[in-house]
């Protein structure tokens, strides 16, 4: 039977090839989705951990326990150390370093310094493996045993020498800290140290913060002081540094669980406090992980559905071709069971072959996808790890099962047919209208999705609040959009024949026989074109939708970053002031020392630059009270206009008009519109605003704005209950010179517009040894944002969706046409016999093409655009963040559309070429004979 099946497959290479393509894509994508999700999440985890060090300057995976043990508990100190060591292993991460820091809790006071007048406090301490992490700067390392006078040797941080006035070689007698025999502990300082490397994680706190510490050998410390007869209590700090370089997303749950259970255990055991740097970070990551998973899955579903539809279409087509064969087999006594078995076997053979190709394909896909930077844009990324997740196998198995079912199910119905009713069926008059038209599926789908759209529009606020608190967007929204896409496309398909009929009425007498025939065919065989048209338009609509979605999401994210940053480069130097002097002598007036601005004058690489005062601690008096924390922008209008990045469509007039108005009078101000809305201020009114040091300035209102570079009208912040809430932000824009007259010279930012690259600023920073308190490089911010898991994954998945759409479109299109020609060979023979030339037959096909493929494509493109216009404003809420400010707009990229058009054109042209080759090779005489069945 297997041989029979193989033979059967070989005979239908075209269909088999198409089925294989469909199955490979189906399996590959089903399998790649979880792999890709894991890979993206992993990379996101790595960058989260990396950023943690950068932002907080703390080791991200540090578990810390602090305790104090009283004399009677000394034994337990050791016990717990062992326990901790055992426990530390449970996290499943290798331990990079474990540091044990112990000290006598009570500071000892010593009087016998060389100079009697100075008192010093000292804490006898010990740290494990100290010698490996220090450099002795003065003196030498301690001995590990006390000398004959029972003096213990110790070393101190360099800083202690200066701050405590300690000297090398000095022996300190600790007054209150005594051995069991009442003799005081004596310590001799033999050396001073600094840390051996700057970035040594060992020093959670730098050596200089232990300025009272007298460090002695740890074993010696344990032996002498961690005993029950020693009266003072001992404190201990344990630091466990986990090596996170190979940390996996899948380990997070276990780490969080084990951390919680360790915390419990140690707290119950009387250990005082545990600290960890990572629980918050990892919990937040978990929340975003959930969001990423749902979003990715939801984005992938339409692609998988269309792939399944493709497989279904092809296998149904194949069955149609085999209908006679099946009927013959049946009439020769092949049972229904055997028939089903044959098809089951066939689909299994196909699936296995597809599976073999799909495995490496999925791997490749993940690699390619992971290097997707934006929609259809790829960058080289090194060290890409592709993670094979268990879910992949699950998805794959489901896909295989579904595919086999899709291929086998149609046979169940058809296997009942015998040769007799096959003939009958063939001759039966077909109903004109497809099933969906008779059941008004298009209207039903439109109604359902329209209701969804309406409901979601009304819930916009709730939707975005939910997204901000970490939830993924409601999958129902995506489903509504897909339903709408189908419904709207079907609706267009319904009205298309009306147009065609009209054209036919007008032209039927004027057309050449070829045009006339093709028109008749388009009009009268509607039902057989239906599936291919639905398939084509859905594929294209998904392609267009994906392209628009990706572009919209990326562009809005970019625009928001651009708006909030304000310019290509925004930086602020550290300003010196006389606060020290002013705090000691109230008569001295506080002032800043302005760093030289002249060095910026001919900055190469900068097109323009300007000073911008940007502060948020302004208070404005209004009717019935004060508005605090108002943002103030002090600008030089002309330079600001040349330098800042601003999308002028955000304001009703060109924003230069606002700047010009502002420039007219020194004291004029622009206010955020909410001053007008909330406090009834109007143009021409005068306001007074004061800074944190109570300087006051007068401002005459010349205009109101909703948007201005860096101004976010609403801030979202997380409340104590973890829910995001909106707070309103107010803005004053004033002339910088006026502010400086009234407030004195205040630290300002430098905004720069580059000539294209921001590279020069890094050299400039180095050359001038700038100390910056703020530095934002817009181009690197934009790049950084693209690395976020959601944005990156969305781009990758939408790219795949788009490519799959095009591949399927091409293959589906070719199959349909090849089949439609094969089916009609006899007809072409008749046409040729009746004297139709080759050229006319090709014209005829071309024309059919136009009406079937081209209209399907046009419907698809229109459908895709309409759907994205309607749904993207909602869907992109899923991509907004707490700092989303700029109103979101739906946009398509011209280059994507050109790409789409080129590919569609190539597809049509390629299809046409293949078709004409097939037709040309067809012999009329043979074609006519084919009819003699």
């Amino acid at each position, binding site marked *: 039977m297997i041989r029979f099946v193989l033979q059967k497959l070989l005979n239908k290479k075209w269909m088999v090839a198409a089925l294989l393509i469909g199955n490979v894509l189906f399996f590959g994508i089903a399998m790649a989705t979880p792999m890709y999700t894991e890979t993206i999440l992993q990379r996101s985890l790595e960058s989260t951990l990396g950023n943690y060090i950068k932002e907080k300057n703390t080791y991200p995976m540090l578990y810390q326990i602090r305790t104090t043990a009283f004399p009677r508990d000394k034994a337990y100190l050791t016990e717990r150390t062992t326990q901790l060591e055992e426990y530390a292993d449970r996290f499943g991460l290798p331990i990079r370093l474990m540091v044990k820091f112990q000290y006598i809790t009570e500071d000892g006071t010593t009087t016998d310094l060389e100079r009697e007048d100075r008192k010093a406090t000292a804490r006898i301490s010990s740290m494990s493996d100290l010698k490996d992490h220090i450099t002795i700067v003065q003196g030498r390392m301690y001995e590990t045993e006390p000398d004959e006078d029972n003096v213990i040797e110790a070393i101190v941080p360099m800083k202690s020498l200066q701050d405590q006035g300690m000297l090398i070689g000095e022996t300190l007698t600790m007054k209150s800290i005594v051995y069991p025999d009442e003799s005081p502990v004596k310590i001799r300082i033999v050396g001073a140290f600094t840390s051996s490397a700057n970035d040594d994680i060992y020093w959670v706190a730098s050596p200089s913060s232990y300025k009272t510490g007298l460090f002695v050998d740890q074993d010696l410390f344990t032996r002498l002081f961690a005993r029950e007869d020693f009266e003072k209590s001992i404190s201990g700090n344990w630091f466990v540094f986990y090596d996170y370089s190979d940390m996996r997303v899948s380990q997070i749950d276990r780490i969080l669980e084990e951390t919680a259970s360790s915390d419990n255990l140690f707290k119950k055991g009387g250990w005082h406090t545990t600290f960890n740097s990572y629980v918050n970070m990892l919990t937040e990551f978990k929340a975003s992980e959930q969001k990423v998973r749902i979003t990715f899955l939801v984005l992938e579903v339409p692609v998988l559905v269309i792939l399944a539809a493709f497989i279904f279409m092809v296998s149904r087509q194949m069955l149609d071709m085999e209908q006679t064969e099946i009927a013959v087999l049946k009439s020769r006594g092949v049972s229904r069971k055997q028939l089903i078995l044959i098809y089951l076997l066939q689909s299994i053979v196909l699936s296995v072959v597809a599976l073999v190709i799909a495995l490496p394909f999925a791997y490749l896909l993940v690699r390619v996808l992971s290097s997707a930077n934006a929609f259809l844009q790829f960058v080289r990324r090194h060290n890409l790890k592709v993670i094979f997740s268990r879910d992949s196998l699950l998805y794959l198995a489901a896909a295989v099962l579904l595919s086999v079912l899709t291929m086998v199910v149609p046979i169940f119905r058809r296997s009942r047919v015998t040769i007799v009713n096959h003939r009958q069926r063939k001759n039966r008059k077909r109903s004109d209208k497809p099933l969906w038209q008779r059941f008004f599926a298009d209207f039903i789908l439109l109604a359902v999705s329209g209701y969804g759209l309406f409901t979601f529009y009304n819930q916009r606020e709730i939707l975005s609040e939910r997204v901000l608190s970490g939830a993924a967007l409601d999958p129902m929204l995506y489903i509504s959009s897909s339903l709408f896409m189908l419904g709207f496309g079907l609706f267009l398909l319904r009205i298309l024949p009306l147009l065609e009929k009209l054209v036919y009425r007008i032209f039927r007498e004027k057309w050449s026989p070829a045009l*006339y*025939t093709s028109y008749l065919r388009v009009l009268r065989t509607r039902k057989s074109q239906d599936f291919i048209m639905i398939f084509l338009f859905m594929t294209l609509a998904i392609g267009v939708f994906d392209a628009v979605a990706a572009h919209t999401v990326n562009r809005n994210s970019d625009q928001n970053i651009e708006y909030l940053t304000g310019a290509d480069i925004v930086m602020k130097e550290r300003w010196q002031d006389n606060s020290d002097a002013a705090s000691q002598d109230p008569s001295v007036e506080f002032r800043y020392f302005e760093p030289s601005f002249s060095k910026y004058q001919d900055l190469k690489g900068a097109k323009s630059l300007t000073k911008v005062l940007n502060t948020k601690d302004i208070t404005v008096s209004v009717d019935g009270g004060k508005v605090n924390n108002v943002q103030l922008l002090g600008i030089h209008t002309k330079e600001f206009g040349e330098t800042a990045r601003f999308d002028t469509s955000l304001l009703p007039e060109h924003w230069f008009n606002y700047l010009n108005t502002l420039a007219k009078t020194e004291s004029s101000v622009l206010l955020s519109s909410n001053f007008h809305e909330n406090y009834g201020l109007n143009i021409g009114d005068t306001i007074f605003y004061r800074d944190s040091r109570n300087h006051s300035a007068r401002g005459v209102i010349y205009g109101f704005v909703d948007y201005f570079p860096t101004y976010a009208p609403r801030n979202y912040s997380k409340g104590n209950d973890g829910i995001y809430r909106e707070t309103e932000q107010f803005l004053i824009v004033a002339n910088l010179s006026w502010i400086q007259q009234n407030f004195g010279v205040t630290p300002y930012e430098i905004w720069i517009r580059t000539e294209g690259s921001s590279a020069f600023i890094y050299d400039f920073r180095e050359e001038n040894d700038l100390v910056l308190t703020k530095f934002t490089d817009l181009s690197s911010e934009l790049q950084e944002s693209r690395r976020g898991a959601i944005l990156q994954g969305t781009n990758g998945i939408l790219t795949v969706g788009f490519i799959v759409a095009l591949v399927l479109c091409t293959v589906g299109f070719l199959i349909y046409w090849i089949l439609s020609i094969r089916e009609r060979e*006899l007809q072409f023979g*008749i046409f040729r016999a*009746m004297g*139709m030339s*080759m050229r006319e037959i090709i014209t005829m096909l071309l024309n059919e093409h136009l009406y079937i493929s081209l209209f399907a494509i046009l419907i698809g493109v229109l459908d895709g655009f309409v759907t994205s216009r309607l749904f993207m404003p909602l869907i992109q809420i899923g991509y907004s963040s707490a700092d989303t400010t700029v109103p979101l707009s739906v946009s398509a990229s011209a280059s994507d559309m050109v790409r789409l058009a080129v590919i569609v054109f190539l597809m049509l042209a390629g299809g046409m070429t293949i078709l004409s080759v097939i037709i040309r090779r067809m012999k009329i*005489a043979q074609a*006519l004979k084919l009819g003699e069945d």
Partner: protein
Amino acid sequence: MDYIMRTEQVGRAFKTQGDDFWALKEISVEIPKGKLTILRGRSGSGKTTLMNILGALDQPTEGTVYFGEQDITKLSEEERTMLRRKRVGFVFQSIALIPMMTAYENVDFALRMAGCKGDRKERVMECLHLVGLANRADHMPQELSGGEQQRIAIARAIAHRPEVIFADEPTGALDTMTGLAVVKIFRELTEKEGVTIVMTTHDVGLMEFGDQVYELEGGRLVHEEE
């Protein structure tokens, strides 16, 4: 007798894996004008091949074919297309109507093909009357019986007043009675309209209707009678 077509030493070889297979060899026939000529033979005897060559659907490997005084083997593909369009008509064994056109449109289509301008309606109805199916003009082919379909095919073949009509086993797919009716239509056409008809058949019972009968066997002419 006046001949409209004749062949001289026509042969047709098909490429096969080994030697060429000669489907026709040294055939010289003459087709009388306004008469019904029958090419007779078993299946595989070469009668359809000969007819395809006569109808300019196929090219002979050797020999010449004259249509009137014109050697049609020398014509270009384009010219042969035009010849088929204007001067000949075909009726096939398999009922070869265009499935998406009504009976009326099928006949009308032949007129469109031949480039008839002006009022075609009258001619279409006339042809449908000739085959006795004027009342089924608006039916789709699937709605007609086999014999009816074949009669429509004949109406289509004669619509543009071709000089010769070729009918390849026109009765092959029909039962004896219907087949007989079809051949009777052919007779009437030759007698009333003066159309030249060439028909192939393996049915000995139909021989008597022919004005001229050629019998083929294994690609060679074996018998000829008037």
